[in-house]
Every structure is written in structure tokens, then in C-alpha cells.
């Protein structure tokens, strides 16, 4: 399944056809290709469906995101897994065929203070305290087609009458060597009551 034209049954068939064509044209090797689409690759229950299909397979090319590739690798310890897409960012569709980055999953969310506009992903420099000197007519000096995130933030704060938030100073982000949480646990350890055992 896909919502961003990366992966999904159509992309899988397209890649299948392209591989087949490449093999025919190169004239070497006698690989056989097969295709299969899962609803999600990141859940072990879906991956169980792969077990039978991969009995005589030498390598898997996954069109899942980085998580999908790793989930297959975990499920099939003896199987090499190749990534078929280069997962770039968490974004949203602007229009059919255009996607914009919106979140870096930095674990340090400031959206409450920046009027719901993320300076980490939308500012080229990812700076936290107002625009740099490179902003011109509301556009970014690095790419004149892209809006300056800080101008957007300013305008929106103004609309919301929260311009005082612009006056605050935000300390630099935490770039410690291992800032990532690596695991989130939301379940609660329940205490096993007496008499249960």
C-alpha cells in the first residue's frame, strides 16, 4: 500500500517490468523475478505472508520505507534485503506528483511556538531564532521558489496576535551524540495480582 507513489502494487509491477527489460537487454544472467505486495511491511503479522513465497528466492528488493526493509531483514535472517527506495522525509502531498517535507521527527518539537510551521524542515538552515539575512521578498536565498519559513512564521503569528513569541530566545537544540529515543513504550506494566499464578 502506498499514498506517495513509492511502493504499492503499480510501482512494484513497474520495477518488475524494468528489471525484466534490463535483464533481457543486457543478455546476461537468468534471474527470475516475481512480485508481491503487502499491505504493510512494518508489521510482523503481514510479513508472515512472505514466508511461503520466499522459499526459493535469493534476494528481496523492498519498495517499503527504511522500516519496511529492516522489518523484512529481521523476519528473514538468511535473506539479503535491498532497499528499492531512498526514504527521504516525512512530507505531505502538495498536488499530484509534488511532495513537501514537513517533519524531521527530531523529537524536539517547537511547533507550538512557531505557529504550526516547522523551521527545522522548512528553513534551509533549520535555524530557531528568526530569519537569516538571506531572506528576500519572503523567499529563501537557497531556493527562490521556496518560501522563507521564518517569514511564514512571523506572518502567521501576527495573524494569531502572538507576535510576542517572536521575542523569545530559543536555546540551541540538543545535538548530543545519542539524542534519539530508540524506543517508545506506551503500554503499562500491570501488576499481577495474587491468586492469578
Amino acid at each position, binding site marked *: *500500500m*502506498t*499514498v*506517495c*507513489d513509492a*511502493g*504499492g*502494487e*503499480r*510501482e512494484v*509491477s*513497474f520495477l*518488475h*517490468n*524494468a528489471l*525484466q*527489460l*534490463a535483464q*533481457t*537487454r*543486457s543478455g546476461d544472467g537468468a534471474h*527470475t*523475478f*516475481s*512480485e*508481491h*505486495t*503487502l499491505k504493510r511491511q512494518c508489521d510482523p503479522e503481514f510479513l508472515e505472508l512472505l514466508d511461503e*513465497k520466499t522459499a*526459493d528466492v535469493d534476494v528481496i528488493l523492498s519498495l517499503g520505507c527504511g522500516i519496511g526493509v529492516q522489518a523484512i531483514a529481521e523476519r528473514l535472517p538468511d535473506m539479503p534485503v535491498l532497499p528499492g527506495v531512498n526514504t527521504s522525509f516525512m512530507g505531505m*502531498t502538495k*498536488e*499530484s*506528483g509534488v511532495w513537501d517535507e514537513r517533519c524531521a521527527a527530531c523529537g524536539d518539537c517547537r511547533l507550538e511556538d512557531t505557529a504550526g510551521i516547522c523551521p527545522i524542515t522548512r528553513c534551509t538552515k533549520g535555524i530557531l531564532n528568526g530569519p537569516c539575512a538571506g531572506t528576500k521578498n519572503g523567499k529563501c536565498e537557497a531556493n527562490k521558489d521556496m518560501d522563507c519559513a521564518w517569514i511564514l512564521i512571523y506572518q502567521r503569528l501576527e495573524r494569531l496576535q502572538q507576535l510576542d513569541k517572536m521575542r523569545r530566545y530559543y536555546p540551541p537544540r540538543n545535538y548530543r551524540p545519542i539524542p534519539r529515543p530508540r524506543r517508545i513504550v506506551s503500554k503499562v506494566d500491570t501488576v499481577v495480582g495474587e491468586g492469578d499464578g
Partner: protein
Amino acid sequence: MNVANTSYPENRPENTPDHSLIPPCQYACPLHMDIREYVGLVSQGRIMEALQVIRTGNPFPSICAYVCTHPCEDACRRSQVDKPIAIRSLKRFAVEFGGDRMVLAEAETKHAEKVAIVGSGPAGLACAYYLKKIGYPVTILEAHSEMGGMLRVGIPQYRLPREVLDIEVQRLTRMGVEIRTNTRVVSLDLLFELGYKAIFITIGAHQSLRLGIDGEESLGVIDGATFLREVNLGLKPSLGRRVAVVGGGNVAIDAARTATRLGVKKVSILYRRSRAEMPADPKEAEEALEEGIKIKYLVTPFSIKRENKRLNVTCVKMKLGEPDESGRQRPVPVKGSEFSEEFDTLIAAIGQAPQTPDDFGVRIGRGSTIQVDPSTLTTNRAGVFAGGDAVTGPATVTEALAAGRLAALRIDDYLQHRYPLPVKEAKEKLSGDLLPETIEMIRKIERVEPPSLASEVRAKDFETIELVYGWEQAINEARRCLRCGVGAEILFQDKCATCLTCLRVCPYHVPFLDESGTIRIPADQCQACGICVAECPAKAIVLRKPFDRRQVTEELDHTVKSAAESKTKPLIIGFCCQYGLFGTGTLARLWRGAKAGVSIIPVLCVAKVETSHILSAFETGAEGVFIAGCGEQCARENTTYWVQQRVEKVRKVLGPIGIEPERLQVFALGTAAEDPAEELDKFVEQISALRLASVIKGEVKS
């Protein structure tokens, strides 16, 4: 192991059922003809196949091609966009160009039970045709000297040439239908005594209604049906200089136009309501006006006096009052508005009724019509069926044909002692009007009218007025069809991730999110362009007709197979649109005398060519692949845009595979001033050069 699409083997689109809906045109047609199908075939230039479809649903398509009142066109949803498809004219084109008159009808007699058909109008002829096809010995008994009923004695020759009718009658004779003209049936008992096991009464409605005014019996007053019958059977009644026709139906118009053709200079039609209420076909009325006939609205004759060999007709002006039971406003005389006019002849054409001999012993209902069970056409007498105008009162040819067909099936049931099963429609009817946002995006394409004789030429004699389309005109007209009811559907909801691609790519804003967050593609809005089908990342969307789903893949497979058999690999494979492009001749020479090494894969709009199809074409070993579509001339929106998107995507992967991206090209009509055939020639040259270069490179390497 090369198993494509192993994830949902049971869900492969080619294995899925036909989910198409009945379009409004077909639903409106008394014969339920598959109009969408044959119009579609005409738009692809497949005229013989179109005729086959027409003949499956209509025993006498040539007759309908001239005189059908085309309720299908009234129901056509294109009229919400601009004007309806000219369906009748397209049928005319199909029967003329497809060679309907050459079609042989054959029938074997399989049953012993003889059936008598009383009357040879459209209902009788249709009943005879189908009964004979089923295998019964059939006799048609006709009171007049010639066959055809109202088709012969009612409809003037300029609307239905007699040779068309003669061909149909001859076809019936060849099938073995026994025909007895000049045979008026007065008693059904006699027919049963003669050994007929079933009788179909289809005696039409030939008795004109009376005006009910003073002086109606005067010399010089004639009724419409009698007048038309006399003229159509070869008499030339002398009418004088000034003729008035009373009435506003098709018979009144026919009578007036016939009088004009007999040389009468001043013909006026007196109609008691206004133009909007006139039941006659507006086109016929228009043509009558063009021929110099005057139509006086809101006027009715009050009394007639014969003086000095002339008719002095006192008329009264009318105004429209309260609506009557038919929904039309009832005309009311305006007091003191009487005026007199002189005419030589007055033709009363205010309606007709059947006249059934009492000795038939069938129950007569309102308006002197024969009472029948509408689903079985049985009368109160065992073995006696009735249909056509005799049952409905004056109606259309198509309705009569439908009644004849129904009678044949029910008579078969009766003679085989079967319980008549009600006909159940297997498919759902398409309902709902087009939404304004859909209409806005549909390309407006002008309706092409067939040529017709100029009014000053045609009013002189009984030559057929309407001429037939030319090839190009017919194809362009047929291309306007919206193909209602064969659009896209999300067949595999379990695959749909609600990614909204369909909603975003649809040029007509058809897919929408419902309240529960599920995407819907309403069948009554979809224009069947196929863009979402080719773009859906989950392959969850298909077109409703299996043929539309498989077409490109099947044609591609066919090309691959024939290439494998001939052992010479195709040099170039081209996906070429079948709508118009070839039919109108722009690329016709490409299609007909395909260049050596160029294999054409016919597609129904290039928007249905998917990226996989393009790669598969290269997979066959082709040196070049092109896609040729109608571009700006396409009846659908954005098709070329999406083809270009897909081509760019494929080009990106061709490079790494080692295939030069310029080996894949798009040709679209109307986007460039150049002749697409010329562009294609260049492409062929270019590909040949590339091949030569690679051969040389290969030799240098070795």
C-alpha cells in the same frame, strides 16, 4: 518463476465481472438497443461491427434509421453539456456504410404450429421476423395492396424511401414468411379453422378522428390518414390552390408537406395550441416552415361551409387555460375572435384510432383500442395476441417493433406451453444528472448534423430529404458520446489506501471523500477516460466493462505472440488511439498500410496506456516505441498530459537500462502544426539510424 500480481490472484481485473450500467439512451429506447456500444464502434470506424450490434437489437434498422423518433436522443446526457448525440443519423450511417441491405436473414422452420399475423405494419413485420427466426410458419395478412401498414400508407416517401421498406419485406419473404396482400380479415374464427394456432392482431390505428363541427361532411374536406394513404398508394388527389391542415401532430405535418409536394402553393397548418405544446417532431415542423408552409397557432376551425366550389372556414382564436389531464394547457376559445378564411381543401389530422371489426370478439377499451395484458400482449381470447397502434393508439415505429418482438416471444411461450417469465434486466440503470462541475470540464464539441436537401429542391418531389453522413462526419459525431455507465469503479476496496490519487488526477472532479472518509467514484459522473485506472498506485480501480480493462494488455499480447511466431522482432511498436485518429484519416495510412517493422497496438484512448505496457513493448525487443493520440482533438480532458507524465517516468528508467530515452516518443494531434504521420516517418528513420549505430558498435566491440 515469473508470476505477476501474485498478491491477489482471485482479484485480477481480467477475471472480474461486467459492472457496466444501462445508459439513459438504451433505457429510453423501446427496443432497448445497445446504443452506447454501436456509437462507440462507429467512433472507432468499426462500421460492420456496429451494424451487427444494431441488427441484434432491431429487426429493421434501416427503417428506424429513417423514421425513428429517437427517444434515446431526448434522454442523451450530452444534452446537459451541449447537444445530444445524433444517434439516429449515426444508425443511418451504420446501415448504409455497413451494407445492411446486403445482410441475408435465414430461418429454418422447426415448429408445426402456424401463426397468423393480421396487419403488416412495423409490429406485424417484427413479430413475423422473430417468430420465423424462432422457427414457426408465419402468414401475414394485409388488407391493403401493399405491405408495411403505416410505414407504407402513412409515412410519406420523402421520410422513408420505399425501396428500404421493400428490401425488408423481401428479406421476410426469403426467410419463408408467407405474405397475403389484399386480404382483409373479418373473422378470427375462420383463421383458427384454417389451422392457425395463434393470431397476432396488429391492425394499426387508421381511423381518423372527426372534428365534430358543422360542414365536416362537405366535399373538399378529407381526413389526414385517408389523404396520406391515397397519395402513398399512388393516387394524386386534386387539392386546389389553398389547403388547410388541422392538427399539430406528425400526421398534420406529413399531410401539409405532402400537399406542398403535390404542387399546392399555399398550405397552412391550423393548430389550437401554441408551438411549445405541438406534439410533432420539432425538426419536422422546422423543415415544414422552410418549405414555405405556414403554421397558425392558437386557431381552430369552428364551422365549414361549401360555397362557390370553395370551403369557407370560420375559425376561432384560442388562448391557453388550465392544464388538462395530459399536463398541457387546455385551449379555450376567445370570445368574439371569429374570422373566416377560404380554402380549396381542408385536411383534418387531429388524431387516429384503431377500428377493430366486432367479429374479432376481442375486448375494446378506451379510444377504441384493443385491451391486452401489457406483459404478455394476450387478449380476452385464447391464442389471440394484439400489439402496436391497435393497442396503444397512434405511437411510434420503434414502439410497434418492440411490441412485435414481445408478441413473438409470448406467442412462442404460448405455443410451447411455457409460463411466460418476466424479462429481468441483469444490469442496473444509470441514474442521476451530471453535476455542474463535471459538465464544466467536459469538452464542448459541436453536434454534426447530416447534410440534407435544400428546402427549395426538396419541396418539389418526394425525394428523401436527409442525406447520410460522410465517414469523417460520422466518426466525429460518434466521438462525442459520453459513454455513460462504463466508467471507473474501485473494485478492490481492500487495496484502496485512500491515497486520493484518483481524486487528484480526475479532470472531471468525480471521485470524492464521503463522510466516513472512504473514496467514492460515482458512476453517473465518471467520464470513463481511464486516467485514474492507470494512475491508481494500488491498482484498485478498474473500468466497469471487462473489455475496456483487458483491451491494451490483450492487444499487446497479440503483437508479442505474432512477433514471436514470425521470428522477426518488431522494429517499432506504436500504441495508437482508435477514436477518430485513424477513422478520420489523419493517420489512416499508418494503420492500413503499416510500415514494415511497425506494429500498431490499437488502444481506446492513449490515457489507458500504462507505464508497464510501455516497458513490455520494449521487452519484446522493439527498437522504438511511440504513443499516438488525438491530443487537442481528444474528446476527453488531460489525456495527453498524463501520457507525457508516464513517458517521462519510463524514460528515466530506460537510461540506466541502456536504452536511449529518445527511443520512446509521443505524437499528439493538434499540439504541433506538423503532420503527425510526417513526424512518425522521422521517428522511424531515427530509430533505424540508432539500430544501425548499435550494430556497428557491436561489430567494433567483437
